[in-house]
């Protein structure tokens, strides 16, 4: 037992030092900073209690970013998982040109979002952009997809879904390959429809992959904001502002570090809740498999 403890210490300490140093301590410091004012120039930070939190609750931009982020997550997560599964099913069939299909679905993984955002910008450009050129063939009017407050968030969601679905496809494809062929043939002989087989056999068998993918999808719904930098900077009128982008803006453009810390604490809270929920779910499902 005692020797085990020493070994455990040796094995754990490198990872723990980094985890604690770059996650836990900064997280605690962030929480502490959220109770102080921002120091600027010669003015030092002062303890102001929960003033920052009061500001936060009254901040329309924060409320909007929070709402946007919820929509962003609520659409991106299921959409990218379902599309990924569809793609995997497609390329798992013996279709013509399967290699090309796979490569097509794989492109988002290789093209950095920050670079592709410019290309999407062209697709969405009103008038001479790709979407409008196609719409023009059917005499439909130009649409300012990125410039309208009611459509801009969905254009961002489309880009994020594009990015993620192709990536998740790979994991599903590998999972599908592990479903034994005889099982499928037997089901076909019994007269089970493809859909029935998919629902009753395939889906339960790939459950662990779905969990793996959904953890990633949840993390990315907070993290994946690169295209916002290039395409909208959160505009117009904050219609495409997401939480992490707002943190960046407050911290590195407004230089209001205390308020940025307060915003961060909120994100931390949400993520912690998700982490705990997911842990119970994951541990039960995957551990005893």
């Amino acid at each position, binding site marked *: *037992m005692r020797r*085990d*403890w020493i*070994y*455990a210490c040796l*094995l754990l300490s490198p*990872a723990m030092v*980094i*985890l*604690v140093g*770059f*996650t*836990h301590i*900064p997280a605690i*410091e*962030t929480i502490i900073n959220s109770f102080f004012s921002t120091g600027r120039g010669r003015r030092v930070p002062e303890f102001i209690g929960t003033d920052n939190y009061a500001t936060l609750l009254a901040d329309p931009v924060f409320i909007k970013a929070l709402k946007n982020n919820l929509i962003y997550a609520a659409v991106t997560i299921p959409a990218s998982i379902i599309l990924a599964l569809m*793609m995997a099913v497609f390329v798992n*069939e013996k*279709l*013509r040109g399967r*290699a090309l*299909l796979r*490569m097509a679905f794989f*492109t988002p993984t*290789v*093209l*950095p*979002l920050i*670079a*592709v955002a*410019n*290309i999407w910008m*062209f*697709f969405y450009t009103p008038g001479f*952009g*790709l979407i409008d050129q196609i719409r023009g063939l059917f005499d439909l009017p130009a649409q300012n997809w990125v410039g309208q407050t009611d459509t801009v968030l969905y254009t961002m969601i489309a880009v994020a879904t*594009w990015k993620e679905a192709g990536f998740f496809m*790979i*994991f599903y*494809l*590998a999972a599908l*390959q*592990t479903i034994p062929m005889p099982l499928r043939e037997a089901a076909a002989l019994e*007269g089970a429809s493809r859909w029935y087989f998919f629902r009753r056999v395939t889906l339960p068998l790939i459950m*662990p*992959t779905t969990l*793996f993918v959904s953890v990633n999808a949840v993390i990315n719904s*907070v993290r994946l*904001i*690169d295209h916002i930098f290039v395409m909208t900077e959160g505009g117009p009128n904050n219609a495409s502002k997401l939480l*992490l982008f707002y943190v*960046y803006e407050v911290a590195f453009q407004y230089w209001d570090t205390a308020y*940025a*810390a307060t915003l*961060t604490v909120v994100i*931390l809270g949400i*993520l912690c809740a998700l*982490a705990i929920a997911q842990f119970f779910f994951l541990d039960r499902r*995957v551990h005893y*498999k």
Partner: protein
Amino acid sequence: MNKMSFSWDRALITCAAWALALLWVLPLIYATWTAFHPAEFETRFDLTAPLTLTNFSDAWVQAPFARYFLNTTILVTMILIAQIALGTLAAYAFARMDFRGKGILFSLVLVQLMIMPDILLVENYKTMRDLGLVDTILAIGLPYMASGFGIFLLRQTFMTIPQELDDAARIEGTSIMGRIWRVYMPLAKPTYLAFGLVSVSAHWNNFLWPLIITNSVETRPLTVGLSIFAATDSGIQWSVINAATLITSGPLLLAFLLFQRQFVQSFMRAGIK
């Protein structure tokens, strides 16, 4: 199921697959189109448009993409090796050892599953400043070198490995490191592969943290290099930007196209779940 409806079914699937694939590859097709044609054909898709390579030479001359590519490669490799090394050791301790405080320590790891360093960039910047690491490749990678996600995945996998294998190796006198190396790591290969892909893809694409922590050509990864290259204050130049995108993503795409069969197969053979 008669044969007729089966083939209809198939045709439908083929069509849907190709439609979806076309949608997915569209950005790449567009990038290729603009990169090989003069700027006036950025928005006009005329098959008789003249071909050119000047966009590539312009992009190549205007920014040190080879250097950026190298930086990203170093960064991604460094992070992956560290994550695997540190993650494996920690995962073994969590999966196979009993010690006081295990529960607490493990929940600390789980916290990091969700709270990635990206969110704590303000504080992490201060830490890097105190360590004197601002504007180094190490600083971009360091906060990610222990991955809660990696430790968690590996622990779950290690727990499925029969304890008897471990015991047998121990009786033969194999050390802890030896057992990890010879028993656990080979059996957890699929997990390593899956995690490796997540990690490489995440850091290949990572933008926000490197943007803040790097200042110079010697440290900037591709994403940051591309973003400052594509600053659009004076009007966007899709052809040159896309040429740059192709230069930097081309090698990977080409590699995937050439080796995709081996890649997907080894991935499948590994049978990740």
